[in-house]
């Protein structure tokens, strides 16, 4: 049995259902990322886990104990969790030390042990010289570290992070991504991390849960999510991709609009109705010369945009069928706008998507 289990969880405000039948199991010590666009229900899911909002249906279990159900909600203070907020929520009237020590004070930890534990965690987060400062006197990155230290020092059963890096600038965000992963490797708390940034999710997570419109679209390791997307939404949201719509043909072939036949090495085919094919931008090969056989996994079109980006060139190609695909090519493949090109979609890179 997993440590944290969400079972048929649902939450609605009036007529608006923001979390719909969410099922999720998280093993002890894992870091799970809830990833999705804004309004997909990921933050509400986190707040349900924290106990700030009561559930309308389903349940949440921690270590086998039900903490939330439609009938009862254990209050947040009785859950032994801790949380890092988007605003950091550092108390402006307490020093760094007092902020970090607050949770230990609530747990009636003796003063000497409190001081020792706070100093240890401040050292781990590189905050030792700042312990007497007030939050208003710290930079954004330092505030973020205090917020981490405050959450970690109480040794929570579950650590919750709500878009923790969204208030930081780009450089600091990259640094803190690795910092969060490093601290997780060091302390191994079961962690639920909410973000809309896929790079953040890729860097930090053991398991990524992609959410859309209140539902879980797909859950899996970063490799699973990127290489083996199960839905069009996941393929588009993670990494960006070209989607070509078509019907299942013979065997593993999908016949797309414009009579493009694509053999797909992986994926699911819809027995009837539409099947989509996803192919990543960098997997498409671009050629100026007409290939000898254009029957299978080939298409032709004209270059409608070409941008030089230093490390590569970014192309938009309008296919004769009317679709537009985006692809990237090495810098030395320089084809002017308007010229006819041929595109090769290698079968290994084509993934069929039934939904």
């Amino acid at each position, binding site marked *: 049995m997993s440590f944290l289990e969400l079972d048929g969880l649902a939450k609605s405000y009036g007529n608006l259902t923001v979390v719909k039948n969410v099922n999720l199991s998280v093993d002890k010590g894992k870091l799970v990322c809830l990833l999705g666009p804004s309004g997909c229900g990921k933050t509400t899911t986190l707040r349900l886990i*924290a*106990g*700030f909002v*009561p559930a309308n249906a389903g349940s949440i279990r921690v270590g086998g104990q039900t903490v939330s159900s439609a*009938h*009862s*909600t254990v*209050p*947040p*203070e*009785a*859950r*032994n*969790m*801790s*949380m890092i*907020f*988007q*605003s*950091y*929520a*550092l*108390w*402006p*009237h307490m020093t760094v030390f007092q902020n970090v020590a*607050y*949770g230990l004070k*609530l*747990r009636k930890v003796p003063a000497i042990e409190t001081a020792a534990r706070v100093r240890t965690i401040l050292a781990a987060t590189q905050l030792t010289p700042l312990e007497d400062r*007030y*939050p*208003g*006197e*710290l*930079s*954004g990155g330092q*505030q973020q570290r205090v917020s981490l230290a*405050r*959450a970690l020092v*109480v040794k929570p059963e579950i650590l*919750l992070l709500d878009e923790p890096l969204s*208030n930081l600038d780009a450089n600091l965000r990259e640094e803190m991504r690795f910092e969060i992963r490093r601290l997780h490797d060091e302390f191994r708390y079961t962690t639920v991390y909410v973000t809309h940034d896929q790079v953040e999710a890729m860097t930090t997570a053991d398991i990524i849960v992609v959410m859309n419109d209140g539902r879980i679209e797909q859950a899996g390791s970063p490799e699973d999510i990127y290489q083996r997307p199960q839905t069009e939404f996941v393929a588009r949201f993670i990494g960006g991709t070209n989607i070509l719509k078509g019907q299942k043909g013979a065997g593993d072939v999908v016949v797309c609009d414009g009579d493009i036949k694509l053999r797909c090495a992986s994926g699911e085919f819809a027995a009837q109705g539409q099947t989509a094919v996803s192919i990543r931008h960098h997997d498409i090969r671009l050629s100026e010369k007409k290939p000898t056989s254009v029957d299978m996994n080939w298409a032709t079109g004209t270059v409608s945009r070409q941008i030089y980006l230093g490390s590569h060139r970014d192309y938009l190609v309008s296919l004769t069928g009317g679709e537009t695909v985006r692809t990237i090519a090495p810098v030395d493949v320089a084809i002017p706008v308007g010229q006819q090109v041929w595109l090769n979609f290698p079968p290994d890179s084509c993934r069929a998507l039934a939904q």
Partner: protein
Amino acid sequence: MTSIALNEGAQRRGIDLSWPTFALLTVVLSILVILPLFWLIYYSFRSDAGGGATLDNFAALVTDPALVRAYALAIGMALGVGALACLVATPMAWLVARTDLPGRRHIRMLVTASFVTPPFLGAIAYEIIAAPNSGIVNIIYRYVFGLEPGAYLVNIYTFTGLVFAIACFTFPYVFTLVANALDRVPADLEDASSILGGRALTTLRKVTIPMVLPAILAGTLIAVLQALTMFGSPAILALPAGFHVITTKIWSLFQFPPRLGLAAASALPLLVITMLLLRAQKSILGRRGYTVLGGKSGTPRLTSLGPWKWAAMAFVYGVLCLTIFFPYAALIKTAFTVTVGDPINFDTLTLRHWNFVLFDFSATRMALYNTILLGFLTATVVTAIALVVSYLAIRKTIPGAKYLGFLATAPVAIPGIVLGVGLFLSYANPTFQLYGTLWILLIAFMTIELPAGYQQMSSAFAGVHPELEEAGRILGASRLRTLWEITAPLLRTSVVASWCFVFVGTIRELSATILLTTANTKLVSVIIYDLNESGDLGAICVLGILLLVASFAVVFAANRVPVLGGAQMNARG
């Protein structure tokens, strides 16, 4: 099945005090706000002669020439005050906020501080300065030109004099709103106009002024409203001049023989006008995209006055003299000399008024005690209620808490004199018998001050990010403990400020007090009004100075309370 569900429901809430608190506050606020309005409407349909239901009271509003005239004069006076205040305050606000006028920061502080002056005290100061016979200006005028005793230069006991005296003490409303709005006009909007070729004056006319127009209008409406519902100044200046405005007319209906039904009916249009004006003001200021602008554009740019500096200084200091320096000087002089007209020298300097007020005249000591007591009680109770109501309303812990916030704001639309009538009708009857006690005054002050207290506390609550409280909860603190250890320290400054605000507002209240006070429950403001009728200006000035000192002392003490530093308050960094 049902019992199980009930048990689980109880378990979820634990010991939750929010529902009982909510219910209690709803009842208290409903009584405070709705009861006086109910009796006001009830009495307005009740015949003063027989006691039956009648529409005569409303008919009198249109047919009784005295009432019609009182309303017409009141509206004329209010519009005059609004126009004058707007004409003086707008250029002054621009000079102080957007030019290099010397001493502009101090000027701004002075005008803000002059909010503390009760308007009725200003009216009395102008009696001292500009009464036709005993006014200082007229005495000097006769002395300089060697004129007859009857000659005078200025007469404050006229309609114009009344408008002038009230405008002097309502223009800070317009000034503050406009100056703050000017602060918020981002410099780059003006820069955009300049870069397109607009000269300084064109930019001012086409960009800056239109941007602060809502603030000008809103401020003017407030000044109009203040003047319309004011009792003190008209009672002091209009009655000797021989005319009534509506507030004094309502008060006169309470004199023997009382005509309560007519008073109630006359008060209702005032209530309606106030609501309409406040609604207009809200809709003007509500178009926020137009006035209030976010943005990171730095400090507003200042216009260099150049050769116009001296003219601007003359204007600004002239206004300050008329509204602050002269009135205060007159009050102080009168408090320390035998009679108003005496020249200042060692023979005329005296402490007899102080002696009279503090030791001889027994009524003042009781009034001082009552005033301070009621000030403390009102400030404490209102701040406490406002704190809880805004917590419930802002944090939305309970559905329907919004209604509570509405109730707490509603009295803002009830003018003091109207509330006075309503409370008299509600509590002076045999059931309650509160008339003649301090309780009825406490109820009145609580109702009057609740909106201000609530507004301050709710904006303070809105400033405390809910995540600060949630961080406490998730680390293991209960809701009460979070309130006590996290929310309360963060709100301390606002609580103290709100308390002071209510205290200062309470000790200067006259409009409602005048109808609710009796010989045993005199307050300083009422004593001042009584002494004015007997012409004892020296004693009035002593009391006025005591009121002002008490107000400033409270504000000063509040600023000295060790509160949180600015740097620490900035949680977001």
